[in-house]
C-alpha cells in the first residue's frame, strides 16, 4: 500500500485527527493530531491490510531558527517523527506529530504527546531518548526517565536554544 492509500484509510477512520498528507518531498509523511497518535499507531499495527509490525525509528526535533540572518525562519514548534515498516506487507509509512515548543507557552513546561510504547516495544526506549534529548513528555509512558544523559542533567541538549552547562559536578564545561 502506498502512502496515499494509507492516508485515505486513516482519514476514513480518524477524520479530522489526520491533518495533512505532505507530498512532493523525498519521504512523504502524514501529519497526525498529537492526542490521537497512540490510537492511530494501534490501528496501523493491528489493521490486517496495514500491519505495521515495526517502528523503525522514533525521534523528535526542535524547530526554532537560531540564525537571525535566515530569510525564511521556520514556524517554532516541536515534532515527533515516526518511521514505520511492515515486514509482512513490505510497505512503509512516515508519521509526524507537531506540537508547541512549551506546554501552554510556559518556558520549561514540556509539551505532551501520548506514548506509543504500548503499541511497539521499542518505543519505550526511543521515547525515553526523545524525552532526554529533545524534551518531549510522553504521557502514559511506563518509565519516562533519562536514558543517555545522567539522571541529574539539566535541560534537553537537542533543543535549539539549549545552553551548555558551565559546570557539572566540579567538571568545567567551557
Amino acid at each position: 500500500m502506498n502512502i496515499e492509500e494509507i492516508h485515505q484509510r486513516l482519514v476514513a477512520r480518524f477524520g479530522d485527527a489526520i491533518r495533512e498528507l505532505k507530498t512532493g518531498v523525498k519521504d512523504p509523511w502524514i501529519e497526525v493530531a498529537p492526542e490521537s497518535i497512540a490510537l492511530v499507531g494501534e490501528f496501523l499495527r493491528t489493521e490486517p491490510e496495514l500491519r505495521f509490525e515495526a517502528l523503525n525509528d522514533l525521534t523528535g526535533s526542535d524547530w526554532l531558527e537560531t540564525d537571525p540572518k535566515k530569510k525564511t525562519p521556520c514556524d517554532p514548534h516541536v515534532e515527533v517523527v515516526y518511521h514505520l515498516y511492515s515486514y509482512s506487507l513490505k510497505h512503509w509509512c512516515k508519521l509526524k506529530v507537531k506540537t508547541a515548543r512549551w506546554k501552554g507557552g510556559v518556558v520549561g513546561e514540556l509539551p505532551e504527546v501520548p506514548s506509543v510504547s504500548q503499541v511497539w516495544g521499542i518505543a519505550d526506549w526511543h521515547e525515553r531518548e526523545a524525552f532526554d534529548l529533545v524534551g518531549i513528555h510522553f504521557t502514559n509512558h511506563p518509565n519516562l526517565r533519562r536514558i543517555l544523559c545522567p539522571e541529574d542533567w539539566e535541560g534537553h541538549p537537542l533543543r535549539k536554544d539549549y545552553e551548555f552547562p558551565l559546570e557539572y559536578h566540579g567538571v568545567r564545561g567551557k
Partner: protein
Amino acid sequence: MSLTLEDPRIVEFDVRTDEMLVNMGPQHPSTHGVLRLLLRTDGEIVHEVTPHIGYLHRCAEKIGENLSPPQWIPYTDRMDYLAAMNMNLGFSLAIEKLIGMEVTEKAMNLRVIISELNRIASHLVGMGAYGLDLGTFSPFLYAFREREIILDLFEEVCGARLTYSYITMGGVTHDLPDQITIPPGLAQLTERDPNLQLSWSDALRMFLDWMGPRIKEYHTLLTRNAIFVRRTAGLGILSPEMAMSYGCTGPVLRGSGVDYDLRRDGESIYTRMYEGYNYKIPVAPFADPAFGGIPQEATLGDNWCRFFVRMMEVAQSIEIVRQALDRYPSTQGEYRLPFKMNQKLPTDEVYLETECPKGSMGFYVVGDGDAEPFRTRAKSSCFCNLSVTGPLCQGVLIADIPAIVGSLDIVMGEIDR
C-alpha cells in the same frame, strides 16, 4: 529436650535467600564496553534485568547540527568502531539521497568490496568476543589473526585501521592501491616472502583463498562444539513477534526467522549496489542445505541461531567480495564525484537505513538550505537490539546473562552515540 530457635541445628535449615540487587558492569568484561546491567537476583536466578546505558554518550547528533556532512563523517566512524566503513556508507547514502546524487559504478563496486570486508571483520570480533564471554579463549585468537589482515588491507587503502572515513559523499576517498607490500600476517600465514610486492586486489584474493577453508575451523571450535551448544542452544529465545516489536534488526531478527535483509529489501539507492551479486541470506531455521543444518537442541530465535547467522554471513560476504573483485577491473567511472565541504543541502528530509553488520543503521537528516543539516539523527541498531535484554533475561541463571547479551553483539559506541 526441645529445640529453640537459636539452636544451630534449626538455623542451618532455616536459611532463606532474599532478593539481591547486583550491578554487572559498567566495567564488566563481558558487557562489551561500558554497559551496566542491574540484576535483581534470587540466588542464582535473575528476576529482572535493567540495562543502564549512556556512559559513552557524546551527543553526536548535536555535533552533527554544527558540522557539514563531510565534517561529520569521522563522527560516524566512532559509532560502531568495529564496522566504521558501514557507518560511513549509511550516512553517505542518506546525504546522497537528500541531494539526489548518484555515484558511479566504480564507486559502488569499491563500496561493496570494502563494506563487505568490514562485515567479515565485525563478525569475526563478534565471534571471538562471544567465545570469551562463554569462557573459551582460543576462538578469539583465531578471529583476531584474520581480522588483523583485513585491518592491514584497510590501512593500505585509506591509512587508518579503525576510524576510516573512507566511504564519503560522492564515492570513496581513494582508489585501490596498485602496489603494496604483502601484509606481514598474510605473508607469515601463507609462507610467502615478506617483501613480496603485489596489487591490493591480489593481496585480498590471496587472503580470501586462505580464509575460506578456515571457516570450518571456527565451526569445530565453537559452532558444533558440544559445550558451546549446551551454553547457547535453547537459551534466550526471542520470538519473531517480539523481535519485530522491539525493533530488532540484522542477525538478531534473522535469527528469529524473519527473512529480511536491507541489501535485498532496502531502498533502491542501497540495493542497486548489490544488483547482480549471487549470495544467500541466512535465516533461521536454515532450511537451505548449504548451511549444513542445526543441532537438535537449537530452537528458533535462541542464542545459537543468532550466532550461526553471523557465521554464515561471513561465508556469504566472502563470496560477495570475490564477485566484486572480479568486476573491479571492468567498472566504469571515477571513484569519487566532487562534493564540496560546504555543499548546500536542500530543504527536505530523508531517512535511510542500511544493513550494517549488527543491524539496520538508520540516518535521518533534515536540511534547511545551509551546509549544516538542521537535524541529524542516527538510529542505532544495537540500541534497539539491546532494548530486548530485559524481557529476554527474565528467569535465567546469572551465568547465562553474558551468553544472552553477547549473542546480541552490541557495541556501546553506537548505542550511546
